[in-house]
């Protein structure tokens, strides 16, 4: 009897929430259009890869071997060399931000080459340190082959004796594409967003419009209110997740080395945490504006800045590392990247799932408490 009452009230409330959700166009915009925009923006617009970096090449020694060495730059997709005659002009271009680096082949290149100690100078534009280090590795990579050949021709012995060649391999993200790690991170952001922007309004809206008072004086139990508000938004989140996975697979061709079941399972668990956090904030603030601001500050912004989405958490100060460990997004971020690029790591999956489940239970319990049927 009591259970059937709960179930029928839960059904009625869920129906009501779903209707309200579908009738509010701004909800659907935030629920579907915004994630789509984010996917395209992050997938296409945001990339840490450097393509067509402009390199000013100053040939102060115009000998054939020098030219052969510099020609190594032309074969690369990532570099586009510009031939400049004077160092002064190259420096001006660097100041103006027209080039990302200067490669100087000095006057004594040929002479030094004969001595087995040929050097070229690479000056990097360090304004953007990410780009600078990428350019550095591209240039040294591009020059490695012609330099080896030159050394070979001049005196094979010198080259083979005492020179080690580093054979580099990147694991998990073999081509070094940034979409490979951005897109899985995007799933975290989008699932966070649904909670921060949509569910954070739900309870506050009932307070503001005075409907909460009416609901309270019915047989409704607080937990029924919480669950009925989570249900429809779980569906929106699930659709967003499907959108992310589909674009990751077919549009950006990000590998999915872990099992789909694990990816979906953990993502839904994180979605529950994100929605519950939104609800808790909403129930505590009782004001839509304050709730949405607080939700953005406490869930969405940290998910971008502190979860390891962009910045490697090992490089941040200890305080921030500690803070980041309290964010459910950090745990989910670590796992989802592993699942996409490395594969199923079951101990890690269980550990993260346990953490997320704990968060969900605590948040729902707190929301239920915040909804105790009292006005004061």
């Amino acid at each position, binding site marked *: 009897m009591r259970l059937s009452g709960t179930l029928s009230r839960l059904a009625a409330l869920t129906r009501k929430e779903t*209707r309200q959700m579908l009738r509010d166009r701004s909800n659907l915009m935030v629920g579907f259009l915004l994630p789509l925009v984010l996917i395209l923006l992050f997938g296409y617009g945001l990339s840490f890869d450097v393509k067509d970096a402009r390199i000013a090449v100053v040939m102060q020694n115009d000998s054939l071997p020098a030219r052969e060495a510099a020609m190594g730059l032309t074969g690369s997709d990532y570099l586009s060399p510009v031939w400049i005659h004077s160092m002064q002009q190259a420096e001006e271009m660097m100041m103006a931000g027209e080039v990302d680096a200067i490669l100087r082949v000095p006057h004594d290149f040929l002479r030094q080459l004969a001595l087995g100690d040929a050097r070229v100078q690479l000056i990097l534009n360090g304004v953007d340190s990410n780009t600078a280090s990428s350019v550095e590795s591209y240039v040294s990579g591009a020059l490695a082959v012609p330099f080896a050949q030159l050394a070979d021709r001049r005196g094979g012995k010198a080259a083979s004796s005492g020179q080690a060649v580093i054979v580099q391999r990147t694991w998990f993200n073999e081509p070094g594409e940034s979409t490979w790690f951005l897109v899985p991170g995007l799933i975290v952001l989008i699932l966070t967003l649904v909670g921060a922007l949509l569910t954070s309004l739900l309870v506050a809206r009932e307070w503001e419009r005075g*409907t909460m*008072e009416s*609901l309270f004086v019915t*047989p409704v139990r607080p937990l029924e209110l919480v669950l009925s508000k989570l249900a429809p938004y779980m569906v929106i989140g699930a659709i967003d997740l499907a959108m992310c996975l589909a674009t990751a697979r077919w549009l950006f061709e990000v590998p999915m080395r872990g099992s789909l079941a694990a990816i979906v399972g953990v993502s839904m668990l994180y979605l529950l945490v994100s929605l519950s956090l939104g609800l808790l904030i909403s129930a505590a603030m009782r004001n839509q504006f304050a709730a949405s601001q607080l939700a953005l500050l406490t869930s969405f912004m940290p998910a971008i800045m502190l979860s390891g989405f962009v910045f490697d958490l090992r490089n941040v100060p200890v305080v921030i590392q500690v803070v980041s460990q309290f964010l459910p997004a950090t745990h989910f971020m670590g796992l989802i990247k592993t699942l996409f690029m490395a594969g199923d790591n079951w101990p890690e999956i269980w550990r993260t799932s346990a953490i997320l489940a704990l968060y969900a239970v605590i948040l729902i319990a707190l929301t239920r408490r915040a909804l105790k049927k009292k006005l004061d």
Partner: protein
Amino acid sequence: MSARPPIVAAEGLRKTFEGPDGGEVAALDGLTLQMRPGELTALVGPDGAGKTTLIRMVAGLLRPEAGTLQVLGRDVTADPQGVQDRISYMPQRFGLYDDLSVQENLDLYADLHGVPGEERRERFARMLEMTDLARFTARPAGKLSGGMKQKLGLACTLVRSPELLLLDEPSVGVDPLSRRDLWKIVQQLVDEEQLSVLVSTAYMDEAERCAQVWVLNRGKVLDRGTPEELRARARGLTFLAVPPAGMRARELQARMVDAPREVVDAVPAGGRVRFIRQPGADEAALGTLLAGAELLPREEELEDTFMMLLRQHAAETAGDPAAAPAPAPALDPARGAAPAAAAGPVIEVRDLVRKFGDFTAVASTSFDVMPGEIFGLLGPNGAGKTTTFRMLCGLLPATSGKLDVGGRDLRSARARARAGIGYVSQKFALYGNLSVRENLEFFGGAYGLRGRALKARVAAALEEFELDPGARSGDLPAGYKQRLAMAAGLLHQPGILFLDEPTSGIDPLARRAFWRTITALSAQGVTVIVTTHFMEEAEYCDRIAIQDAGEMLIIGTPREVRAEAGTAGTDMNAAFIGIVEQARARRRDAEAAA
């Protein structure tokens, strides 16, 4: 009757909230009350009397700090859910979901209350018939008029027959027609189902319908009894004064209100002044005060007792803002002269039309307002009076027609016409977190006052309206907020003052004070255009206009309007209902004929 235990028994209830100044304000101050089952019990009292707090406590939503509260024989503090499962409650804001349809709202509440299928069908059919909402089941609740929302709110709380129905000021901001419909429904349920109803109200005619009336003020019970018992308290003290020829009723009323020693209360009514004399009033002083007016005894009403109780209580508690005498702005020669210069009407409206898409909110309306006149714009919710009002003060452009305000065409010279008018909106439109002085200085600046002129006007306004310049505006009591809003609207000494439902939400004593200010302004030559839901306030007006469905139904003095309605007596409420209903019947006939 005495064998049945009370359905609500409160004993020494106390509840305090944090007041504006950080101190504690007692919403309920040792309140003791019993409610009998199977009848209507009214809680009457001004704003802040503790009515809402008490009702919320009965509903188990607030916890008393002291005292005990038994509802339906249970301790509601210990087991609120047990009580909530058996009662129904309509809060002031009805608790409707605007984006759900009428039917969906009903379904939701029926599901939440677990009303089974068969019973539900019967109940819905009955509720829809009683509320006359059957035609609108598919319409979103947000698109209903105020009166319809109120009826739907009631239907939603009555999706099942509760053991106790709580109604918290169900008719605030609702027009007389909708109020009457609502009471018809409640009365019917009490008669047929022996429903027990606890209703809070500010309207005495509503309290009159109840079996028991409890008068509350500042968290205390002032008195209680049947309406007859309460009425008897004012027996022999109630009179009508007929002003001598050449004197307006409201002028006589103003004199009487200014003499609290002789007169408890006075309001203009039907060209006369209804008043209550102080029991121990000095006959000679009263005679001078009446200035030759003829005295007619009249039957005492509940309102009389209510006003007496409030005045008494206000006099007993020192520092009560409502007890302060009504501020009458000092005569300002500069203001008095300006409108007198214009001999013709100060507002001229010809064939005014406003359409929103296909919907005609105001249909071809014409009228004039003379300088110094108090002109009342009345009508049920959705009648078009707000639209008309907004066009008059230049907030909304007219679709067609001629509109001159203060001698300027509003359609071509809106900014200049606006400079000559003052506007006090329905909601408190000042900055709550600014002090009284800061608000006045800001609004003075917005009206173009600067430097010494601004300083002088702000100082004058503070004095005229007896405002504390340092107080935080948002923390003022409702009556004082109203004064501040008036002061801000009058800073630039406009010749015309627009007031949009200025007295909704303020208590009767503050309302008297407010109207005293208005009549004083009018005496100085300021033209006042006012909308109101309180029909008795129409009596302060020189002329009133009643609108319904965008049409101007009648324009005339209150006496002419009453004559047109053909209702006996002086009841403006009945006249209003009569005129609107006659017009609606004519329209239906015309539609049927077409």
